[in-house]
């Protein structure tokens, strides 16, 4: 195992994240560019932290998303940067966003369960589009008649929405609470807002792939 000094390590990690196609995990760093070097976990963390700070005042930022580290443009610059492309960013319908939100917060979930909560049918197109975007995937089948597919979100979903994990979803805690109420209604406390303080997350919210 060769040695590498800290400044070189920072440069190498920085360049690697820059030239890579997607986010770069620590594991990938170790398996590729750092394969022949002896680098302590602590040292690698320090390099990543320093890089994050180095870019704080710049036009791009180093962020950690679900599948690793990536550089991305400052989101305050998006009104100007979007002028670089002819077409505008895709917009998503409420039906799609609600379906996606339900899959994100209550995964693994079947189409039937989504329809139950939303009160309307979920079109096959929505499931197809979400699958094609690689935001959701089938993680199994529910053992009920018809064995419907169970959907869960992917790392690509978290990466796209710039989230390090499902816990970082907005209002994740409120959601978990009400969902628990829903599955186990307790009329005596149901309407009391103090109840919402519970922060326990259902296990079903972890991403598995």
């Amino acid at each position, binding site marked *: 195992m060769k040695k590498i000094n800290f400044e070189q390590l920072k440069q190498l990690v920085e360049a690697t994240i820059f030239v890579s196609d997607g986010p770069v995990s620590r594991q990938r760093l170790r398996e590729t560019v750092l394969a022949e070097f002896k680098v302590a976990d602590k040292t690698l963390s320090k390099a990543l932290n320093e890089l994050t700070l180095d870019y704080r005042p710049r036009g791009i930022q180093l962020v950690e998303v679900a599948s690793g580290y990536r550089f991305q443009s400052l989101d305050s610059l998006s009104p100007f940067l979007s002028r670089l492309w002819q077409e505008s960013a895709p917009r998503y319908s409420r039906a799609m966003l609600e379906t996606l939100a339900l899959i994100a917060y209550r995964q693994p979930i079947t189409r039937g369960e989504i329809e139950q909560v939303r009160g309307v049918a979920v079109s096959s197109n929505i499931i197809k589009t979400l699958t094609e975007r690689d935001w959701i995937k089938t993680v199994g089948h529910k053992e009920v008649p018809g064995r419907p597919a169970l959907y869960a979100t992917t790392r690509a979903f978290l990466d*796209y929405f710039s989230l390090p994990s499902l816990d970082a979803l907005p209002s994740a805690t409120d959601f978990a609470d009400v969902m628990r109420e829903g599955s186990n209604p307790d009329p005596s406390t149901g309407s009391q807002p103090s109840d919402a303080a519970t922060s326990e997350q259902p296990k079903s919210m972890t991403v598995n792939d």
Partner: protein
Amino acid sequence: MNTPSSVTPQEAADEATDAPVQQPLPLAFINGEALIEKPQDLFIPPDALEVILETFEGPLDLLLYLIRKQKFDITTLPVATVTRQYMEYVEVMTALKLELAAEYLLMAAILAEIKSRLLLPKRSADDDEEDDPRAELIRRLKEYELVKQAAEDLDAQPRMERDIFAVQVDTSDQVAPLRIEPDVSLQDIVLAFTSAMKRAEAFEHHVIEREALSTRERMSLILTTLEHAHYTPLESLFTVDEGRSGVVVSFLAILELVKENLICCVQAGPFARIHVKLQSNEED
């Protein structure tokens, strides 16, 4: 979801306020046609028939809208008022000849059922609170409201392509992909050799010994050394620090190379220095 004490007065109040404007409840509507009176606050362009279904994500969404519009609290759902308004909207949909989504009709039925159950006389004052026929609907409304909020939050979340853009940097020059060569074990080689030799029966008499191998290695080495030199003194091919066995190996290698006609030895006269060179050099 509700305390029984609050239910009855609230319910009574609802019925009271609604009384003057109460339409004949169109239970008949579910079976076919009924009253047609557009809600005044909902603007529906005559040429945009699907506007309602596009505006609302379903019956729960429509119900939520009605509740919010009247600034009611979901937890004390005023069934009578909301049911009447809901029916009006559904009426508009039928009036506009929209193919009514089954979900809207189902909700109309649920509302009607809840309303009829509320109208039935209570068996006792402290009836089981879970008996409130509205409880399940309230739970669903609260749940849906949360999903709606979550979808809005998700939409507001900074995302790729719209708010943030991925950075792509090229490498300075063409970086050739690193080729990972397959692993080979020593045993692979020995096995390969054994099987090759086994097949070549004619070569069976060539038993490969350790000694022969070191000789052959030395043969390769000597060939490499001589490659670019025209004449090399024979003694330079021997190194003293290798000891006697090293000298023997080198000597055997030279003999073997001469025998295989790969090198030739030249001696100018008796007792003169012996020089070796590659056989090929002579012909060049």
